[in-house]
């Protein structure tokens, strides 16, 4: 076997070892994650909590701010996604109503009305 072939074989072995180490043995830490990475059911439950509070105080600015930690998408879209998930997951009707109410309020909400997003 020529020297060059051996050279590329050991490079490939090193590459494989590096990938195994970096992806499996010592991957990027997953502690200290952000709410953006939450699984859909947890995200939906967080949005449901926001909807429960919104139902009581009708403060759409505060609701939008609270949804801001779930990502950079518009709060209305975040709420609508959670509503879709809640329908698929057969949330109780009372919870669906809360999510619908929040989604509807956010769809007509304008950040310029005083509710600056974080």
């Amino acid at each position, binding site marked *: 076997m020529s*020297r060059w072939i*051996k*050279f*590329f*074989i*050991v*490079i*490939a*072995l*090193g*590459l*494989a*070892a*590096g*990938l*195994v*180490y*970096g*992806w*499996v043995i010592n*991957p*990027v830490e*997953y*502690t*200290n*994650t*952000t*709410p953006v*990475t*939450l*699984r*859909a*059911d*947890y995200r939906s*439950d*967080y949005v*449901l*909590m*926001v909807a*429960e*509070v919104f*139902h*009581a*105080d009708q403060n759409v600015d505060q609701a939008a701010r*609270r949804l801001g*930690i779930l990502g950079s998408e518009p709060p209305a879209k975040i709420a609508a996604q959670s509503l879709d998930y809640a329908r698929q*997951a*057969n*949330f*109780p009707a009372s*919870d669906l109503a809360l999510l619908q109410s929040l989604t509807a309020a956010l769809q007509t909400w304008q950040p310029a009305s005083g509710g600056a997003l974080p």
Partner: protein
Amino acid sequence: MSAEHEPRRGSWYLLTGLLIGLALGLLVAWVLAPVEYVDTAPASLRPDFKDQYRSMIASAYVVTGDLGRAQSRLSLLGDVDPVQTLTLQAQNALAAGDPDDSAYALAHMADALKQSPNEASLSPIPELIPSITQSPAGSANLTPTRRPAAALTLIYSPTPRPTRTPTPTVGAAFVLVSQEPVCDVNLSEGLLQVEIQDAARQPIPGVEIIISWEDGEEHIFTGLKPELGNGYADFVMKPNVGYSVQLASGSQFVTNLSAPFCQTDSGDSYFGGIRLLFQQP
């Protein structure tokens, strides 16, 4: 170059190739296509996001009164001692001026959990044991092997909601139901102890109390000494100074409070304290 040097050079270039490959592998794994975590659980959130999540749980609990659902949600955060965590966060919020009005909700939920018979069963969820499936795009799916499904079943099951926890009536003024001097050498001299209770005689944390005197004013909050009760707050009065006390949320104005003279069994005199009890009618 002599022939006897050939084997040694062969070993070195193999090692060099291995190191180059290793470096390339780490470059890809850590920089170019690092593992991206999706579908994480609340327990893995950064502490400040956990605090926001916890505040949201408490705020939702205050408006729904559904302690069972709140407990299920709280268990997702994996706090070792949820009551203490809530209390500490409430205290930190109060100390920071309570910018997001979460202190009352956090302290109220901590108080409810303390009184809940199910509090002991609020065990932290086990550590996440991730199994990572590498996708062709270079991202990985983190599949936690624990029991979030069970916890979420509790949340989403359409079981009847428990009776709402009594919450203070908004706007109902507190009334002073007792005022008594306290002569106890074990307490600080001039200690003004204030206890706040709701209409159900339950302590209320996070209540702002305004203490004023001739040339000053101090604001204190209940619940900052949970070991003495979530509705408890105290203040040390100076001797021979008259104080007035009022609750910021509305109460009668209690005036002419001053540290009383007390005597020990041996006849020595010292300044005692006063204990006030406010309740909602």
